[in-house]
């Protein structure tokens, strides 16, 4: 009987429930209540059919983009709860245990990093790219719409595993980087690290497919006449980011798969014994990990470029410089991974070469900052919320860049590595750099997606709270790091650290109000949507093609495909007093039909992950078969598109 049970449930048992601490139990209750609340709400509003046909089975890049961003915002809240819990623990934990037991604190810092990188920033970026890129290049959809849906659902499956780890079992304690041998079974048995591995493995496959999709889309689906050097800056950054994805993500997939083999089958890639070597993991991980930060930040740079030109009512200064700088950064990002472990004991030549290579990235990045500065120069700057986030970014990002150059000096790195100085540095890049960029993009393109603008005052409040909150939360971590405080401390005995940690907690509280302001902004704007309506499709006096169409655009985007002969094609058309030029085109407009392939493969991926985590091998196998069978069956479908007439709406071909 127990044999049958163990085949059925693997190592899943009653002890997997979160009754080991009140905080964990509370987290589980909130997660379950959130999920149930959503289901009840949809049922109560009788929206299941609308949800299914309008969203869950859609292959429309705009709707997939919106779903990515909804996922990102939900995960932002979850990741932020982790963050403020850590800040509270460290503010309290001088000479005491604080309120979190060590194991729980460890799960929180591991899930915070994993969520914010993989399930907040990545989906946010993918969502913005999905929504914006086809509109900016004059395309009717991405190159592979069904694959696009599969990418989203695999990301959602990974996020689902992340969330369910709060309710069933425990999450990893090995940090978001999962360094072996600590992340091996010898030091961390149990399911935590497996949750981490499988959630990023499965979502990583989706991300890799997104990269392929966007490279093909940008190379093959541009409007007639849009040469590469006429593309909007955001498209350039999306292209470079996608190229980085397809080169970098396989390294992560391989590294985590090898770690899974070590843990599950007892292999020895990264173990202490039997010839394993942890440095192989660290090299692979950072060959992905360093490009990853540019995967995240290049599209943010693209958003800042769009925003700064639009809200300065001026052409982007130094467009060719910005393109070359972006490409330089993309190439250089693969040459610096070793700076994440200068302290492994490499020789001075190796460390110096990687230190200098790292600093070289500061050159094209510095050029970008100057180009944005000179875009505002002799412009007419409007302080709408996206522009506030952009100006805030420019001021804070250079500080993070400076601390990055300091960390790139190997002897300085020996003293600051693994300290809160490092934590301050990468948050200084990722919050003002990546997140401010994505929030600017979210507010900037929101009217295009929904037909009404977001409230300006709540947007400005959110910005100031994020700005001051960021400064208070992270500036103290620089001096703390110089005082020798390691990252990931559950308790400490140094009284000098506590005042700075209390300031950092206050900063986290301000960021909490920043997030609440964003929620208020959404609420107020939905309430006042009639007053905030965007009737022209061009609420910001925009410059690129997406503003030439109605808000929200029809499913097929463009009734007639535009013809492009200049940068800022829409602005040029407005200046000449003509509509955007189009080519007469008699070929029918084809719109890909909804399909259940995306959700099915996402579900299959979830089953593979959940089965592998709990050793429920029948489930993993069933998931694998379901996924492969879905793909095979789908490949026999020839008729996957509907023909539409812009004047009549959709009809079957």
């Amino acid at each position, binding site marked *: 009987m127990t044999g049958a049970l163990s085949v059925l449930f693997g190592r899943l048992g009653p002890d997997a429930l979160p009754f080991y601490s009140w905080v964990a139990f509370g987290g589980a209750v909130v997660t379950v209540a959130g999920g149930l609340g959503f289901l009840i709400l949809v049922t109560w509003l009788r929206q299941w059919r609308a949800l299914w046909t309008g969203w869950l089975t859609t292959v429309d890049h705009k709707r997939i983009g919106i779903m990515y961003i909804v996922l990102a915002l939900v995960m932002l809240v979850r990741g932020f709860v982790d963050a403020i819990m850590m800040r509270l623990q460290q503010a309290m934990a001088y000479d005491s245990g604080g309120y979190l037991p*060590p194991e729980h604190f*460890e799960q929180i810092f591991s899930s915070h990093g994993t969520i914010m990188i993989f399930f907040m920033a990545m989906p946010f970026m993918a969502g913005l790219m999905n929504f914006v890129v086809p509109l900016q290049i004059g395309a009717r959809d991405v190159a592979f719409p069904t694959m696009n849906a599969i990418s989203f659902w695999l990301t959602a499956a990974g996020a689902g595993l992340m969330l369910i780890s709060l309710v069933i079992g425990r999450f990893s*304690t090995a940090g978001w980087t999962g*360094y072996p041998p*600590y992340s091996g079974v*010898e*030091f961390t048995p149990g399911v935590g690290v497996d949750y981490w591995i499988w959630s990023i493995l499965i979502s990583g496959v989706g991300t890799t497919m997104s990269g392929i999709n966007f490279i093909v889309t940008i190379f093959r689906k541009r409007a007639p006449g849009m040469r590469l050097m006429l593309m909007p800056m955001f498209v350039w950054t999306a292209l470079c980011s996608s190229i980085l994805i397809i080169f970098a993500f396989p390294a992560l997939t391989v590294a985590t798969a090898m770690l899974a083999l070590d843990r599950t089958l007892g292999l020895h890639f990264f173990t*202490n*014994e039997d*010839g394993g070597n942890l440095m192989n993991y660290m090299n692979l991980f950072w060959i992905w990990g360093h490009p990853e930060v540019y995967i995240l930040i290049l599209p943010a740079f693209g958003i800042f470029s769009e925003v700064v030109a639009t809200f300065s*009512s*001026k*052409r*982007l*200064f*130094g*467009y060719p*410089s910005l393109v070359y700088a972006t490409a330089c950064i993309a190439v250089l990002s693969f040459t610096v991974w070793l700076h994440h*472990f200068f*302290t492994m*004991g490499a020789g*001075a030549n190796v*460390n*110096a070469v990687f*230190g*200098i290579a790292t*600093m*070289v990235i*500061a*050159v094209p990045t*510095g*050029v970008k900052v*100057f*180009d944005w*500065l000179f875009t*505002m*120069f*002799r*412009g*007419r*700057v409007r302080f709408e919320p996206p522009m506030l986030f952009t100006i805030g970014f420019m*001021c804070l990002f*250079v*500080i993070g860049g400076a601390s990055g*150059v*300091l960390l790139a*000096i*190997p*002897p*300085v*790195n*020996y*003293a*600051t590595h*693994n300290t809160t100085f490092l934590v301050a540095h990468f948050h200084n890049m990722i919050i003002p750099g990546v997140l401010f960029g994505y929030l600017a993009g979210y507010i900037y393109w929101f009217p295009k997606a929904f037909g009404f603008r977001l409230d300006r005052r709540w947007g400005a409040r959110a910005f100031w709270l994020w700005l001051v909150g960021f400064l208070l939360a992270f500036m103290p971590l620089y001096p703390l790091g110089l*005082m020798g405080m390691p*990252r*990931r*401390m559950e*308790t400490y005995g140094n009284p000098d650290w506590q005042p700075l940690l209390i300031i950092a907690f206050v900063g986290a509280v301000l960021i909490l109000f920043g997030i609440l302001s964003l929620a208020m902004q959404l609420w107020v704007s939905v309430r006042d949507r009639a007053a905030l309506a965007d009737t022209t499709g061009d609420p910001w006096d925009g410059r690129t093609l997406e503003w030439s169409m109605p808000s929200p655009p029809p499913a097929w985007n463009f009734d007639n495909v535009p013809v492009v002969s200049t940068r800022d094609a829409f602005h040029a058309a407005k200046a000449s007093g003509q509509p955007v030029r189009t080519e007469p085109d008699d070929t029918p407009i084809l719109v890909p039909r909804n399909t259940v392939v995306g959700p099915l493969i996402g579900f299959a991926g979830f089953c593979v992950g959940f089965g592998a985590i709990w050793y429920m091998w029948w489930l993993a196998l069933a998931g694998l078969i379901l996924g492969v069978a879905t793909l095979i069956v789908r490949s026999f479908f020839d008729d996957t598109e509907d023909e539409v007439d812009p004047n009549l709406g959709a009809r079957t071909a």
Partner: protein
Amino acid sequence: MTGPIAEAEAELMWRAFWLMMIIIIPVIILTLVVAWRYRASGGKGDYQPDWDHSRALEVVLWGIPFAMIAVLATIVWNQTHRLDPYKPLPGADPLRVQAIALDWKWLFIYPDEGIGTVNELALPAGRPVTFHITSEVAMNSFMIPALGGQIYAMAGMETKLNLLSNDVGETEGRNMQFTGDGFSDQTFRVLSLSESDFEGWTEKVRQSDATLDVATFAEISKPSIAAPVSYYASVPDGFFASRIAHFIGSEHSHSGGTQDQ
């Protein structure tokens, strides 16, 4: 308590910091000034909506960060070689100390004195020290913040770190790399002693009843949090090397291999 390595690392950091501030402070000020001066509502200054290129300006914009990085790169090359943690420090013959990271404590072996300690490290002030570092468990990172930067401790591998304490005093060293529940408390006392006090300290350790052998090592290898200081009057020859070698050998168990050594 200070050391020339920590001082040099800090001095280098501040030098690079102020160098960069030459550019960064003007950039921040310019950003705010330009945004305000050219604001749409009531701003001053020209409006040239199509001005997007200036060859001279582009050269300057690439040139400024390039020049800055060229200066910094020269500094990095020289200082990385000067402050190479593997480079023995000038002066007297360095004291050799072998450090083994355990869960969650540090075992120190003084091979030339033939003694060992847990969680207490005594150093003669003014005499260079060469640490030979390894780990028996997950990857640790060995650091004495007051004396200078860190280096990883990895099982089956040996890393080195050269440090020097200028003056007599006491400070704390620790593991900087997260390794689990006992990580926060994985610190050790560092005593920087005069030459004669150091002699006295080694004598005190030699008076200890305990010796380090296979049985005691198996005992202290068991995970424990905030382990008390303990002294070992003698340590077998080649003990440190054997702890590294056993990870590379072919016959051993998977549980850390402490029982068969």
